[in-house]
């Protein structure tokens, strides 16, 4: 079965950058439809009528609109966000899944975007909330507590290291615990792992 074409939106007020990205996308193997947007409002309007797979965004559009952006991300969890890295915004990682710069090669950009697409399909509808952590987050946490490295966790769960890092960030955000040994205690208190399984 032929998979449906990707819906990609580019939120970037600069016409030159927009045109350039669109050309790269259309010349690639990705079967996609591209929407061009200039404001966050236009994005919200579009999302009401068309589900998007990937949003390519100038992160400046998110500045001072973090709250709305988070809301959008929560409301449309299946949409991945790729930020264009202009080297100005440091904390974009919270709101974007990955970023590329305008100096990256076309191949590299396409490679990143197709990875996002695959990840979307993989992660899909796994939103089983348990103790505030998702099933996936619990799996990542269990790996962490057992002393596994990001790479090992990524391999055993068949996800990218980047995704593991993202899960770790979310775990920390939800629990308020940042250090690994702190997370171990959390996992035991919450009976996510048994204390017998841990080397003390």
């Amino acid at each position, binding site marked *: 079965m032929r998979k449906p074409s990707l819906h990609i939106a580019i939120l970037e007020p600069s016409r030159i950058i927009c045109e350039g990205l669109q050309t790269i996308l259309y010349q690639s193997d990705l079967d996609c439809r591209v929407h061009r947007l200039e404001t966050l409002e236009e994005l919200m309007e579009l999302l009401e009528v068309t589900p998007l797979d990937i949003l390519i965004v100038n992160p400046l559009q998110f500045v001072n609109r973090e709250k709305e952006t988070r809301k959008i991300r929560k409301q449309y969890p299946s949409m991945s966000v790729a930020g264009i890295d202009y080297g100005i915004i440091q904390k974009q990682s919270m709101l974007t899944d990955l970023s590329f710069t305008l100096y990256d090669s076309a191949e590299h950009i396409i490679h990143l975007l197709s990875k996002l697409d695959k990840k979307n399909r993989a992660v899909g509808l796994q939103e089983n909330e348990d103790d505030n952590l998702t099933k996936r987050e619990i799996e990542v946490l269990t790996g962490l507590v057992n002393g596994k490295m990001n790479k090992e966790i990524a391999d055993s769960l068949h996800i990218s290291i980047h995704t593991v890092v993202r899960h770790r960030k979310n775990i920390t955000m939800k629990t*308020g615990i940042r*250090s690994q*040994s*702190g997370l171990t*205690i*959390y996992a035991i*208190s919450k009976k996510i792992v048994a204390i017998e399984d841990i080397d003390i």
Partner: protein
Amino acid sequence: MKMADLIDANPNLLLMLQHFNIDFRVSDQTVLQLCTAYGISENLFVSIANLYNGLATKEHQTYTRDDLVQVIDFLKHSHHYYRFDKYPQISSYIRQLQENHSEKELKLLEKFFHEYFTEVIEHLDYEDNIAFPYFITLLTNEADRDRQERYSSIEYGDHHTDIEMKLKDLKHLLLKYVNIENDLNLRRKLFFALYELEFDLYIHSLIEETILIPAGVDIEKGQNA
């Protein structure tokens, strides 16, 4: 303003006095009299007192070299307070807690604290043995300054570690997750000790970041000019 009245308004200032090595029996002395008696500039004293009172220091405050030597003394005294007072106190509370309760995660909590404490000691050692001597050399214009050229104030700023982060973890674990019940007196004492430590660590890093490091950078710039 009388020092005694200031302490009445904010008892945390006692900790500041201790770090300045000023005796608590301040009699009826005003801040100025006290500063003169202990050879501390009023400017520096007020800047640090403001930090303890929750007020930021004015930007572009200039400090004399004598001031900065005293800042380093102050920070050294606070290290002493962490090493020999606050951390042993917290450690003993956690120990007692572990003895009173059978929950196994308390054992891990104790381990967590000890690892954390070890990191803290390493950081304090680093400051005492490397960072502070560097600043002293910078300030006293000694001839062998060049030997330490590879070190810089900026690097010192970079070296600030995640001491505060782990402390937050500990607090969160105790407030939200670890399954202990009752024993409220002991647990309250532990919390108070953790909050006191957190507060003083916070002021400590503010002093480093808003007074010591900018002044160090200024002096280095002056030397390179």
